[in-house]
């Protein structure tokens, strides 16, 4: 069959499990975490107990074969409940990607057990104060010193940052070589010279940790370099290409959470003698939201399917992430509108969803950077 949009029994069972978990464990606590900005350790532990700590790890480490479609389904369910809580396992996956694609078997043995079974976190440390969209502009240096590299520099906006046990760090051997002079390193928390600056106070995703990570003469053995010297940028791009469908499914999840809440509200709330869903303006808003969600879902499904078929396509990954993130922002804004004054207030969950959603257009490549990629691809 050339086309098929049905999930198999295993995928559906997984979806049911995660959905129930989210309803019981995440939905009741999400508002409190948003308010306190506390890192959700207990929820993280529970997600890990379910086997969700690093869903893209090779089977031998996480004991489950997720496949990208199944994995995206899980991400969608998690983020339907709470992006701030759901982002932690997502950051683990992103951090692991350079290792997955560029690492040796020994490096996998070093990297994965802690994250998959040990309950530890990982972080992906690429962004710097002067280099966000422009990954080639990374200024953190790695200077060769015998069998070691000495890393110096500052990373910002690092998800899981100071809570992470292991980091993948992008550094430059020679900044004049731009994207050809970079390598990824695995660095362990506690290494001398590694410290943390401020944690960001953010508009949304507030319980997620976003740290500044400082490298002051951090000495790393060459066995922790991933791939050859100079492979860093390529690995970063590969990591983004394969993780963008995850963000697309996360965006779809956020949109779904808001849509479902607004839809149910529109069936209950009355104004001018009928339920507001019976006013055409509200019904049409809901119709637009449903279309946005369906389209986002189809895009991540195709992008994830391509990944599963080993047909990774940078442009489709970018399209899925960009469309779903932009769509999620439209959907959450309209959900607030449908709830009226209640939508603006914290007793109802949609205002948080609106604050959370904005990051989807910014991290893992802004919506503009996705368009740069798509634009290049369609013109090539």
């Amino acid at each position, binding site marked *: 069959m050339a086309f098929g949009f049905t999930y198999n029994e295993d995928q559906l069972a997984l979806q049911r499990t995660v959905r129930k978990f989210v309803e019981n464990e995440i939905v009741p606590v999400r508002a409190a975490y948003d308010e306190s900005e506390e890192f959700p350790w207990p929820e993280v532990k529970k997600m890990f107990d379910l086997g969700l700590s690093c869903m893209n790890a090779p089977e031998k480490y996480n004991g489950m074969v997720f496949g990208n479609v199944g994995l995206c389904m899980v991400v969608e369910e998690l983020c339907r409940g709470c992006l701030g809580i759901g982002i932690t396992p997502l950051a683990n996956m992103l951090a692991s990607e350079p290792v997955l694609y560029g690492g040796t078997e020994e490096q996998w043995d070093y990297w994965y057990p802690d994250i998959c079974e040990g309950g530890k976190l990982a972080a992906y440390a690429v962004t710097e104060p002067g280099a*966000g969209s422009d990954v080639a502009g990374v200024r953190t240096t790695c200077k060769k010193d015998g069998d070691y590299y000495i890393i110096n520099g500052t990373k910002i906006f690092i998800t899981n940052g100071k809570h992470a046990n292991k980091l993948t760090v992008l550094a430059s051997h020679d900044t004049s070589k731009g994207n050809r002079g970079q390598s990824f390193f695995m660095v362990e928390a506690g290494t001398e010279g590694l410290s943390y600056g401020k944690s*960001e106070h953010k508009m949304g995703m507030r319980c997620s940790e976003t740290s500044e990570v400082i490298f002051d003469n951090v000495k790393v053995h060459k066995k922790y370099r991933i791939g050859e010297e100079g492979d860093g940028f390529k690995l970063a791009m590969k990591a983004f290409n394969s993780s963008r469908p995850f963000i697309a499914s996360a965006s779809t999840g956020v949109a779904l959470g808001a849509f479902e809440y607004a839809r149910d509200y529109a069936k209950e709330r009355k104004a*001018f*003698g009928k339920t507001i869903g019976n006013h055409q303006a509200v019904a049409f808003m809901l119709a637009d939201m449903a279309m946005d969600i369906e389209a986002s879902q189809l895009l991540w499904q195709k992008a994830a399917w391509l990944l599963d078929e080993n047909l990774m396509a940078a442009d489709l990954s970018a399209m899925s992430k960009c469309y779903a993130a932009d769509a999620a922002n439209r959907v959450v*804004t309209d959900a607030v509108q449908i709830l009226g004054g209640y939508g603006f207030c914290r007793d109802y969950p949609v205002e948080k969803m609106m604050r959370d959603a904005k990051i989807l257009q910014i991290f893992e490549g802004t919506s*503009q950077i996705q368009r740069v990629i798509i634009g290049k691809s369609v013109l090539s």
Partner: protein
Amino acid sequence: MERTLKLTPEHEMLRTTFRKFVDNEIVPNYAQWEKDKIVPREVFKKMGDLGFLCPWAEEKYGGVSTGWAKGNPVPDIIPDMIMMEELGWRSVIGVFSHLHNFMTSPYIDTYGNDEQREKWLPGLVSGEKICAIAMTEPGTGSDLGAVRTKAVRDGDDYIINGSKTFISNGVLADVVIVVCRTGEGYKGLSLIVVERGTSGFERSKPIPKIGLHPQDTATLYFEDCRVPAANLLGQEGDGWGQLMSKLQPERLCGCQLSTAMAERAVQLAVQYSQERQIFGKSLGSFQNTQFVLAECATKAQICRTFTDTMIVNYMNGQDITQEVSMGKYWVCETAIEVASKCLQIFGGYGYCEEYEISRIYDDSRVFTILAGSTEVMKLIVSRGLGVK
């Protein structure tokens, strides 16, 4: 582009002194008030001392008589507009003095009798008393005609029962104008003043919200709350008409604040686009950045021109119902869009609270909801078009 709104030297002077006040007294404390979810009363008192409250009030009440006082056919609302602009340009509109100045206290001036004006205006002008208006109820917002809070006449008193929600300045308010049902239908609505301390009148803590954090939005509860019948503004049943006429300037406020936020967002994003270097060049050198900023600046300019024109027309005594409904819908929606696009220019930094742009994003959101949602505005506009 030159503004259609002409400012006199007195207006400019007010702008200068108010801007100083904002810079010295509001901006440095604002982050704390955001945490506290309320602005200290003393701020209102200081504003009163400096003449920033209800400038429209007659001199005998402490004002400078720029406004609607009886016999003044051409109110000068520019002082109020300037103050809103200044708050918006510094992204500190959570100090809701404009609600006190422009959306609530004027009811007392326009619809009150001499005793009522004498009783309440001096305190409102000096900042000793803070004013709020309570229309919305948990069960009804857009549909004001469905208000259920009841006022029953009992001798020389009214006894009020019901609750109101989302009331701006609700925690601080000393003088609350409550929309009550005294009869059936639209003709059965009346405005009755309830003062702080009246037994049977309670309020909630500030309601946490997406934005406008220092603005103490609250729920008010009235349980067998007894107020003198002398607190009725105008006649029983006048409420609907009174509201409809004062909702026009209230919506104008929405336009003015949203316009100022959009202008500020553009200004901040333009600045940032010149400072930030990406891929070895300035962020502003990418065509996408240039075009996004061009679009946002164009939209902010259209908001400005439209809003200024409405201000002028309103001061000329025109009925602006149709245009202010269009404005409230389009200007407020546009400000949200501009804030979002400008935040995007900031990348990851825009998502962090340290950057002012993130506050504009949060604060602008409510203006398509309060004072009549976008959908309700479109209803009014379409009816104005004769579309049935």
